[in-house]
């Protein structure tokens, strides 16, 4: 164990130094909040995946849920993630990117006005504070269990490292660390699944032992839950996941979107998002499949697990030799740090861009808002630390976070989809729909508290109410929605094609326009990637459904 501690300390020190080194290049708000719009597609891919995967989403909380409920947890990796990454990359990112915005609430204001921007911003700041506190709690507990150091000591070390590089380096530093995490996770932690499957004699051996010898329900190995499952019955899970929660998460979560806004081109942003679905799918082999085998290992070695969230830590601690264990811990810590860093950076972006600059202190210099970003980051760290004791009282943290997200993402996805795909949607309609959907979601939390159902039904209610309220009120002015809807985007493309044809025919333009479209190589073609990944999803559903 002392040698593993050396690895962790070296790793944290490297992150700290790299963050300090990088921060020297940051000079303006665009550098700080959008990494100077420099990121190539593979940066985006790694960053999107690493933002998604942390202590909370991924290894500890999702791994813990897989230990408790089985393969159904792979829904997030095999259906929610890939499907939403592809749809968001192909259809939604372009609107954000072309609008030249910093935040999702900024886009909402352009489409629907300032009220919805304010509500959405405040809701996300609250969610982000809870998320950071939950990540710090899980990370602190994990390090405490592994190293034996005091809980608050480990939390403060994590906060110090991630706070420093995010506070000084902004999005660029966060993306950099996320890519390090991507490599360590993908290459360094994948051996665990091979080692475990080797011990339990493959996936068939695992199924055989659990179903035939332990009398575990076959449902444990299905990605579709039955009617009595706490997640809700199968079809709702797929519907709510793929069409509401996941799209809302990918297109509405500031941390996810912000990475794409930092891309060097729209194509890089789109491709990065679509290709990120590959590591997302593989994620199930990093922390879901190993946790299915975990009960057998625990039984063989007489290990008692008091809380599902602690199962992953106990598994690696008892299975891996020194060195590999250190790398694993470093990988898990980096997963947590990158998620905290990205959320921290996004929260400060929303606080500065959507609240401070928009509503409180307008028209100051760029340097003023740049410094404000750093001050906001510091204050958010402090606020999150204060929330940690509250989060420690929650039984299954993933459930709390998913419930809060479903309450916001259901209504958000409805107004985002309507806003982009139905030009007629107007400000009063969207506001009434959003608030009604939010209130309905709150009611559902009190009555049934199943987050998939909350997400789906609040989406449906928001859709219906927004459509009715929109039809009863005046349509929006053309200039207000120009460039922000699918229709206007389509018209622009058609107009471009018509102009080019006219130029070819020589009817309107005397000189041939010099149109050069740089096509990407076939292996970077978005459509090929999207098709292959969707086919893999169907295969997984057929095999494990």
């Amino acid at each position, binding site marked *: 164990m002392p040698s*593993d501690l050396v690895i962790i300390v070296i790793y944290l020190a490297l992150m700290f130094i*790299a963050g300090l080194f990088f921060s020297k290049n940051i000079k303006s708000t665009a550098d700080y909040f959008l990494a100077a719009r420099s990121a190539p597609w593979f940066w985006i891919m790694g960053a999107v995946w690493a933002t998604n995967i942390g202590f909370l989403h991924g290894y500890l909380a999702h791994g813990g849920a897989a230990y408790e409920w089985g393969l159904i947890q792979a829904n997030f990796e095999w259906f929610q993630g890939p499907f939403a990454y592809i749809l968001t990359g192909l259809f939604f990112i372009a609107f954000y990117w072309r609008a030249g915005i910093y935040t999702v609430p900024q886009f909402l204001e352009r489409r629907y006005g300032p009220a919805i921007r304010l509500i959405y911003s405040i809701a996300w700041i609250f969610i982000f504070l809870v998320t950071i506190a939950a990540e710090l709690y899980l990370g602190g507990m994990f390090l405490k269990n592994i190293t034996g150091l005091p809980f608050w000591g480990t939390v403060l070390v994590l906060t110090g490292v991630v706070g420093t590089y995010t506070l000084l380096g902004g999005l660029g530093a966060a993306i950099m660390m996320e890519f*390090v995490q991507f490599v*360590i996770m993908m*290459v360094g932690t994948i051996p665990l699944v091979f080692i475990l499957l*080797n011990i339990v004699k493959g996936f068939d051996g695992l199924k055989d032992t659990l179903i035939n010898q332990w009398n575990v329900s076959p449902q444990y190995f299905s990605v579709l839950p039955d009617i009595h499952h706490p997640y809700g019955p199968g079809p709702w899970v797929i519907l709510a996941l793929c069409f509401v929660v996941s799209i809302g998460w990918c297109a509405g979560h500031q941390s996810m979107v912000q990475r794409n806004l930092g891309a060097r081109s729209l194509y890089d942003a789109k491709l990065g998002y679509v290709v990120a679905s590959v590591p997302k799918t593989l994620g199930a082999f990093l922390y879901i499949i190993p946790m299915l085998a975990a009960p057998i290992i625990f039984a063989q070695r007489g290990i008692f697990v008091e809380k599902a969230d602690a199962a992953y830590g106990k598994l690696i601690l008892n299975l891996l030799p020194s*060195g590999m264990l250190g790398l694993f811990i470093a990988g898990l810590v980096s997963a947590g740090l990158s998620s905290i860093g990205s959320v921290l950076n996004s929260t400060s972006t929303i606080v500065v861009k959507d609240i401070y*600059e928009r509503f409180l202190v307008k028209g100051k210099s760029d340097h003023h808002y740049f410094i404000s970003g750093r001050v906001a980051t510091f204050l958010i760290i402090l606020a999150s630390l204060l929330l940690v004791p509250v989060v420690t009282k929650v039984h299954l943290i993933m459930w709390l976070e998913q419930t809060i997200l479903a309450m916001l993402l259901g209504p958000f996805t409805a107004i985002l989809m309507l806003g982009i795909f139905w030009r007629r949607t107007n400000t009063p309609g969207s506001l009434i729909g959003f608030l009604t959907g939010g209130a309905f979601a709150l009611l559902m939390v009190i009555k049934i508290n199943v987050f998939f159902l909350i997400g789906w039904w609040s989406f449906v209610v928001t859709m219906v109410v927004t459509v009715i309220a929109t039809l009863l009120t005046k349509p929006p002015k053309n200039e207000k929605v120009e460039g922000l809807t699918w229709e206007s985007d389509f018209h622009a493309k058609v107009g471009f094609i018509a102009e080019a044809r006219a130029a070819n025919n020589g009817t309107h333009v005397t000189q041939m326009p010099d149109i050069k479209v740089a096509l990407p190589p076939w292996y970077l073609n978005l459509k090929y990637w999207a098709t292959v990944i969707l086919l893999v999803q169907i295969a997984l559903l057929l095999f494990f459904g």
Partner: protein
Amino acid sequence: MAEEKKGADPKLIVAVQMTSIGVVLVILGTTVFVISLLSLLGLVQTSNPWTPYIAKCSIISNGAIILIGVAFALGGLIRHHEIAKNKKNEDNQAGS
């Protein structure tokens, strides 16, 4: 919205990121590699049946991390070199 101050060179940002990632991965990978080897040598003496398999996995994954690190570090340094070369050319052109 306030006017944006002139920011950093995006190419330089990517070069710095690549070099940093490369250095972090190489140092981390090498440290883990050395510690794993020492630890696995100890495990061989305890006749753990899974040791050869774990050793193989460990060597492959650490080797891959080091290789990726070297590739990124070199890529970053090459980009740094290109940026410096372009800047020198621009300065020369401006001077002439």
